[in-house]
């Protein structure tokens, strides 16, 4: 794994502040989602991105937003928000409202915003990986220099269909990056119990795919790696596979309330030392980029913004009963009734 290289960072204070704000926004948004779930305002499955913020903020900061294509599994609020989806519509979807990104039909796991290049939002582990290849196939077919960025979990990296997909994208040189979000857990199963070789980056190697393992906690390092790999894929029009090392601080989903079954408090505490928010705050302090008061003011401002988003979303209506039949087909309604 490449070493964090703060010292040679060439980022303006404005950029640092923006990254800080963006990550903090995701953090507070997710915490609000968890609170809304506990308050009974959100149902079903809710998977938050706490601890994984640089994977969205860093990587998506390096693509051509709105041009390149992004597809991800179900832990995806951070992807939609970072790509520029209206946060009220994101929250409204999570709360099942008609004005949500998916009109209340998808929920937390099924956010889509094609205008922003975001193709969701998938609940079947591994199922979206060949779909990602299809997006890249379309761009190659039309001779456009878009790239597709496909996120997947470490657990998803075991799905047979993922290996089949890697073979195809290697065979046909599709312009795609598979980004394995290695947060060490697939639900309650630790990686050492689910993967024969826990170095998941190697999975691209047999297919002739450029493959590497990179850090996912230090947003500046993440951005450097992301830019390098994204440029390479765009230039060479060939696939890449990146294993990004991260950690899931939250439970698998909001209903995962016995985490002692798969990790110790000590492990979490150790991982906390590399909490992406703590890292960037440390960096800001170390370089005297902001006063403590300013950081606190930013935090308070973002908390307030998230509250406002939540209240706006909560004021929106649920779908009308008749909408249940809409969108089954593009051009007809299904047979109605029980």
């Amino acid at each position, binding site marked *: 794994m490449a070493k964090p290289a703060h010292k040679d960072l060439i980022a303006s204070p404005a950029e640092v502040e923006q990254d800080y704000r963006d990550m903090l926004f995701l953090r507070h948004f997710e915490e609000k989602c968890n609170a809304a779930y506990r308050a009974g305002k959100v*149902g*079903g*499955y809710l998977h938050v991105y706490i601890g994984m913020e640089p994977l969205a903020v860093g990587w998506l900061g390096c693509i051509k937003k709105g041009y390149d294509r992004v597809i991800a599994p179900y832990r995806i609020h951070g992807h939609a928000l970072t790509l520029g989806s209206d946060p009220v519509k994101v929250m409204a979807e999570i709360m*099942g*409202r008609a004005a949500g990104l*998916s009109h*209340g*039909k*998808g*929920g937390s*796991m*099924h956010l889509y915003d094609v205008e922003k290049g975001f193709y969701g939002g*998938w*609940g*079947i*582990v*591994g*199922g979206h990986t060949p779909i990602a290849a299809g997006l890249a196939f379309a761009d190659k077919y039309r001779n456009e220099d878009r790239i597709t960025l496909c996120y997947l979990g470490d*657990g*998803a990296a*075991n*799905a*047979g269909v993922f290996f089949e997909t890697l073979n195809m994208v290697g065979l046909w040189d599709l312009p795609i990056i598979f980004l394995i979000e290695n947060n060490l857990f*697939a*639900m*309650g*199963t*630790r990686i050492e*119990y*689910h*993967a024969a070789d826990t170095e998941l980056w190697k999975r691209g190697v047999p297919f002739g795919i450029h493959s590497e393992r990179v850090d996912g906690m230090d947003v500046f390092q993440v951005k450097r790696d992301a830019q390098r790999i994204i440029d390479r894929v765009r230039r060479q029009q060939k696939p890449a596979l990146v294993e990004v090392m991260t950690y899931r601080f939250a439970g698998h989903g909001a209903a995962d309330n*016995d985490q002692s*079954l*798969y990790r110790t408090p000590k492990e979490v505490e150790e991982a906390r030392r590399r909490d992406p928010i703590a890292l960037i705050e440390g960096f800001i302090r170390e370089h005297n980029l902001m006063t403590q008061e300013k950081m606190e003011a930013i935090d308070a401002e973002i908390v307030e913004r998230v509250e406002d988003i939540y209240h706006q979303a909560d004021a929106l209506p*649920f*779908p009308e*009963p008749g*909408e*249940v*039949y809409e969108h*089954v087909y593009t051009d007809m309604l*299904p*047979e*109605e*009734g*029980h």
Partner: protein
Amino acid sequence: MAATIYRDALRQCLIEEMERDDDVFLIGEDIGRYQGTFRVTAGLFDQFGERRVVDTPITEPAIVGLANGAAMAGLRPVVEMMTMSFSILALDQIINHAAKIHYMTGGEIKVPIVIRGPGGAANQLSAQHSQSLEGWYAHCPGLKVVAPATPACAYGLLRSAIRDDNPVIFTENPGLYGLKGEIPDDKDFTIPFGSARIAREGKDVTLIAYSRMVHVCLAAAQTLAGEGVEAEVVDVRSLLPLDTETILASVRKTHRAVVVYEDWRSGAFGAEIAARVGELCFDDLDAPVGRVGGLNVPMPYTRPLELLCIPNDHDVVDAVHRLN
């Protein structure tokens, strides 16, 4: 008899069968160290160890394929699908392989596997996690398919499934795991496949259902009783083989029938039941056979629309009213 809940009835049966027969083993995602998503396998990893409670990667086609092979070699795998919607990934192994092997080998090879897990909607799990697929499997010769509604039925049918030499699809329902009931103190208690159960006696109309919809029918029967209509509720519990006789006997008594199922209304297994009643009981019927099914849409996330999709007791009462 001992008081228990549905989940623990399944669990107890698994324990007893594993104690009885070393060839019985469990395999699935998060069933061991994590104790099972719905805790059906809670404690079993500690009790039996990783040889017999096998945590797998997320790879349903290979899990079922491996179970098929292990069964061909004489073991008796019980596969947990975290939800039945994920069994779609394993359809090739279930339908192209498990269901065909005994026949294709002219009876030379047996595939005694059980595939169990929750089918149907829970609470806002959206389109990819809420499907009722038992009708797909019950369409398929070579499989046996059951869908118990009570702890006792779950207890007895799971034992029959594990001891059966054929592939069995065992559908639970997320809404049933906490259901209370009693089970017999009998480590050999089995319920034969192809035997339906009268869940409530009545003389005016027959409500035919399986799994959670049995309870919806029982609630509807309460309401109907208040109107002076005595509904008989037939709990089919085994779809393939199907106990057509018990269903027909009830309809011959009541002269009216409504089939109730959570699956999409169109083309579901309930339609097969309705067809049989129409075919075999035509002269006994005072009205066409009624049907209540789920709306013909992928399951929406938002609660108000989800509730519209899943049949409830009011829908059943309405359907009974429409018969007249």
